[in-house]
């Protein structure tokens, strides 16, 4: 049988071709993943037989038509995708997939990071996780209760400060991770600066820069569009499994502290999953106890960063003063002054 396979690359602005990819994926029972920037397709004559996509550092939507599997098409698709990524200056890549594809992607140079519930896997093609763990391990402290907090702090409020203080009181040492992704209103650089200033009076604390492995667009893409309520539960579980099995052991973490979440459904669900995943007695690593600390209130309302952003829009510094530490207040005033 004659066949001529051709490959082509295009980006998300090419609506007509994106539509074809979508119907191809649907025809073989796969969902069309949201937010792909670049696509690769393979066609035999006019028929679409394989595809793949790149979204930042994450490869998505990789599929081959069932009757064309076993021909090595996936290797060509992966080569094209890696070439695109390289040409954009991205060389460390991640893949979300299902466990039956582990070997396939291992053949493309990817290594398994985590397999969650045998439903979803995360793989990467670099050694960055190992290096990150080694760097973390340098900050390991001895003690019976080694606490941890992960925060975005967009921006740092009295609520965050209270959580850190309470957690530090109950821990021999506290590790605070700052979400590194620059997808929030406040930049990482500013968020971590305000956190450092706001916890400078606590003696038993280390503030860590987050990474691709802790609530990032790689491990937990839907976190950053939580306003749309589109958080994928599997992504949340995956993120927590990476924390439990990789990051926590590097630092000997025994507890994770979170604020109670009265408003945001997404965060609330995340906290529920946190208990399920981190406290599960059987697993590859030691369980981690989750401690919920009641949020501080001000005038009967829990303090939240979203309230700060709201007040800031209105320029209501009188109200802001009540819910952020003076270091954050100074920063916000400066920021306002510059605009």
């Amino acid at each position, binding site marked *: 049988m004659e066949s001529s396979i051709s490959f082509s690359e295009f980006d998300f602005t090419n609506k007509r071709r994106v539509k074809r990819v979508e119907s191809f994926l649907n025809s073989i029972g796969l969902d069309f993943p949201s937010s792909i920037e670049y696509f690769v397709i393979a066609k035999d004559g006019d028929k679409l037989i394989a595809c793949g996509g790149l979204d930042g550092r994450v490869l998505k939507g990789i599929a081959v038509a069932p009757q064309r599997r076993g021909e*090595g098409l996936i*290797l*060509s698709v*992966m*080569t094209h995708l*890696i070439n695109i990524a*390289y040409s954009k200056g991205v*060389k460390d890549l991640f893949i979300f997939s299902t466990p039956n594809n582990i070997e396939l992607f*291992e*053949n*493309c*140079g990817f290594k398994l990071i985590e397999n969650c519930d045998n439903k979803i896997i995360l793989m990467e093609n670099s050694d960055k996780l190992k290096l990150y763990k080694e760097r973390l391990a340098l900050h390991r402290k001895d003690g019976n209760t080694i606490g941890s907090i992960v925060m975005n702090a967009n921006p740092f409020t009295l609520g965050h400060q209270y959580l850190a203080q309470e957690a530090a009181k109950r821990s021999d040492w506290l590790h605070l991770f700052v979400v590194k992704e620059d997808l929030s209103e406040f930049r990482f650089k500013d968020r971590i600066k305000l956190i450092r200033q706001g916890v400078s009076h606590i003696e038993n604390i280390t503030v860590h820069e987050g990474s691709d492995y802790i609530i990032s667009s790689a491990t937990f893409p839907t976190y950053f569009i939580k306003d749309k309520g589109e958080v994928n539960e599997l992504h949340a579980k995956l993120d927590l499994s990476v924390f439990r099995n990789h990051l926590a052991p590097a630092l000997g973490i025994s507890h994770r502290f979170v604020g109670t979440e009265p408003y945001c459904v997404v965060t609330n669900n995340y906290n529920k999953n946190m208990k399920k995943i981190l406290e599960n007695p059987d697993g590859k690593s030691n369980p981690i106890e989750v401690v919920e600390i009641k949020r501080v209130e001000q005038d009967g309302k829990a303090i939240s960063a979203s309230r700060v952003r709201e007040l800031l829009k209105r320029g209501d510094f009188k109200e802001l003063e009540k819910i952020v530490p003076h270091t954050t207040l100074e920063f916000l005033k400066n920021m306002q002054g510059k605009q």
Partner: protein
Amino acid sequence: MNKIKKSAYAGTLESSDAFVQIEPIEEDEIRVELTSSVEEMYGDDIRELIKSVIKELSISYISVKVQDKGALDYVIKARLQAAILRANEDEKINWDKL
């Protein structure tokens, strides 16, 4: 011994080819990470080959990752040389040396 200027790659993941990624590192060594479909038979030979190609070009401080899909020696050599030339953005290629 020379350092490469930046990271680079060459090749494909397809059968009978090799995909080569190189990166500059701080340590004075040639760090080789090989994944090969013919590891049992030729793994050690391929690692030797990779090291000798890099040494011929007087390069060190380099990490090399190779996904080999049963490529012949000269394919691996050519892919590796191409990656190194790309990493150094060499305009004038000294063909005698290659």
